């Protein structure tokens, strides 16, 4: 049984759903950041799979996936700097304790 495009799409959907569930249910903000990274990876798998099966010989999908990886790196750096600052001010990493903007 050969591996086709739909196998990769199912794998991407599974990773995306696991990441979505984690982002919705985790209490720790670092856990939420890790779940978001899983969702980025699911999107990258889909981009690479579409590039391989629907655009043979081209590299546009792989290039866009590289841009996604770069943006994800920038996002996680800024996000972790924010987490460090919040922890320094409020000594917690749990989402329900972040109510600074609540009136």
């Amino acid at each position, binding site marked *: 049984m050969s*591996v086709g495009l*739909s196998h990769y799409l199912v794998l991407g959907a599974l990773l995306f759903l696991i990441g979505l569930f984690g982002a919705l249910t985790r209490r720790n903000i*670092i856990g939420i950041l*890790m779940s978001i990274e899983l969702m980025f990876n699911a999107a990258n798998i889909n981009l690479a799979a579409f590039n391989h099966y629907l655009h043979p010989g081209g590299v546009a999908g792989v290039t866009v*996936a590289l841009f996604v*990886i770069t943006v994800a790196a920038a996002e996680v750096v*800024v996000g972790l700097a924010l987490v460090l600052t919040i922890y320094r001010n409020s000594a917690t990493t749990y989402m329900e304790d972040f109510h600074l903007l609540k009136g």
Partner: protein
Amino acid sequence: MMEAIAFYVMAAVAVAGALLVVSLRNTVHSALALGLSLAGVAGVFACLSADFLFAAQLLIYVGGIAVLIVFVVMLLGRTSDLHLRQVNEQWAAAALVCAITGAGLWRLTAFFSAAPGGAPHAAQTRPIGLLMLGEYALPFELISLVLLAALLGAIFFSKKELS
């Protein structure tokens, strides 16, 4: 046949690592499982003959982002965290959202089930470089601006307040 075996092994590693990320109670173990899952995704890229993406995934994600997350977890962790519940009360609603999203994604996947076979394996690094310095030159420059802004933002947010 070998490609199918490689795909299934790498996909199993990626999915198992992802399940451990969202289910483990200890955040340090979650971060290590994230590294495992990202390495599995790199293997999936290798199955897709995306050689440059495979190397970039290993260098940036496994070697950079996962290590950075482990650093921050160890900076912020407290031993009392190990006794606290790590999921909130909304898991039923989250499961419902995931089920609906999964049903939609399944319909889309079925739409692509009759796609043609893949391209033969070929080196991709040179075409990517030509594309980035040719047609995609503007996004390439913009992404360097984004990286500069992220660098400055990280320094700005994490420096000590001088009062």
